[in-house]
């Protein structure tokens, strides 16, 4: 119990829409029965009654408290059940937990965001948050990579971002399909076309572990300092409170101390890219 509230008790939320993002990824639009506020980059535990729960970082705007969007990749038993849910179903939301993106620390700076695969979900929420404070930012550049054009999620997001002042968005795919006229190659190749003022810039990386590893290495080669790089470590968070130890990474509980860390905080932690 915390302040008279059971911290493990989820809030009921009605599923109003299911958006197919890619063959394996769906976005669930939920209306919580109570106001639900979160900071961008914080995560929640999303549950299905009688089945189980799993951690996700909301992909919607943190400015909206009456509607929540959560993007789910089908990877196992719970997420498969979630993928079969239809509008009208109820889900549970617990949280928010952990430390999200310190958006105020980005004020006055250029923000370079490197995303891969389903890692665009937390990034979309961050992009909404940055758009909200764009007058305080120099520029925001998103570089996103997916395996194929069909695996690319939030397709309308890119043209929208490119129409916003101070925002630029680039996409690449590992393997092109007929009709694809954007870049081909891994996401780090997109960094060849961006020019950042390294002295006044921060970088954010979120995606599969391999992408995060190669992305971070390339950012360091570009001249970013360890403390300028923010990593969103999506681990096996379970309790959300730093009690169960499922998400321990070196001295850190990802659920409590993260999931957003600077590379300076993590670089001496063993197996951070696992």
């Amino acid at each position, binding site marked *: 119990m915390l302040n008279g509230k059971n911290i493990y008790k989820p809030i009921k939320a009605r599923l109003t829409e299911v958006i197919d993002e890619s063959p394996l990824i769906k976005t669930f639009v939920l209306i919580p029965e109570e106001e639900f506020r979160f900071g961008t980059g914080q995560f929640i535990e999303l549950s299905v009654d009688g089945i189980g729960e799993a951690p996700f970082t909301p992909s919607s705007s943190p400015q909206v408290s009456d509607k929540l969007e959560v993007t789910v990749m089908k990877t196992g038993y719970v997420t498969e059940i979630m993928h079969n849910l239809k509008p009208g179903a109820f889900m549970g939301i617990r949280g928010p937990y952990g430390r999200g993106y310190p958006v105020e620390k980005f004020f006055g700076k250029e923000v370079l965001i490197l995303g891969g695969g389903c890692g665009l979900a937390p990034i979309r929420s961050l992009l909404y948050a940055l758009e909200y404070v764009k007058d305080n930012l120099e520029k925001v550049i998103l570089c996103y990579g997916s395996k194929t054009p069909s695996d690319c999620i939030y397709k309308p997001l890119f043209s929208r971002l490119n129409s916003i002042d101070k925002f630029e968005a680039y996409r*690449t795919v590992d393997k092109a399909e007929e009709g694809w006229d954007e870049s081909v*190659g891994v996401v*780090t*190749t997109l960094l*060849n*076309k961006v020019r950042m003022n390294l002295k006044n810039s921060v970088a954010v990386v979120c995606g599969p572990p*391999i992408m995060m590893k190669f992305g971070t290495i390339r950012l360091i080669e570009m001249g970013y300092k360890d403390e300028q790089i923010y990593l969103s470590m999506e681990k096996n968070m379970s309790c959300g409170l730093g009690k169960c130890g499922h998400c321990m990474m070196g001295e850190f509980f990802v659920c409590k101390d993260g999931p957003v860390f600077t590379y300076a905080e993590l670089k001496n932690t063993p197996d951070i890219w696992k």
Partner: protein
Amino acid sequence: MKLTLNDLKEIRFFDDYSEKQLKTIISMSSIKEFKVKEILFEQYDELSEMYILLHGSLSLGISLAQEKRIHLGTIEEGQMFSWSAVFEPFISTAWVMAITPAKVIAIDAKKLNKEIERDCDFGLKTMSRIAQTISHRLSDTRFQLMNQMML
């Protein structure tokens, strides 16, 4: 179209070159234009020019058998390619084709090599950038390979 100092100052490859060194680059360079689907060079061609993409988009790939082209990646604006022109045996390791109308800076590789030998500072900068480009391409290939292995 004539290559200008401002064109070169926009390109990361030449970031800390002196104005004199940039003028030397201009003296040994020309601008070439390519139409969509035009091949800049084939794999195993002997190369005499090192290129930097000024405008447009190019595809880089390898051929495993005749007519079987494997597209490996896109060359972005400002990127250097055809580094094989600078090193013996001057044989291309990949093909490059224009995806959109493209303009490239073509640097005469013989003249470039002479300048690398003559001006140590110019030589160090140029060789460092070429090595960095090759290193990035190798790192990207490892990344791509690991992605494939995880599938």
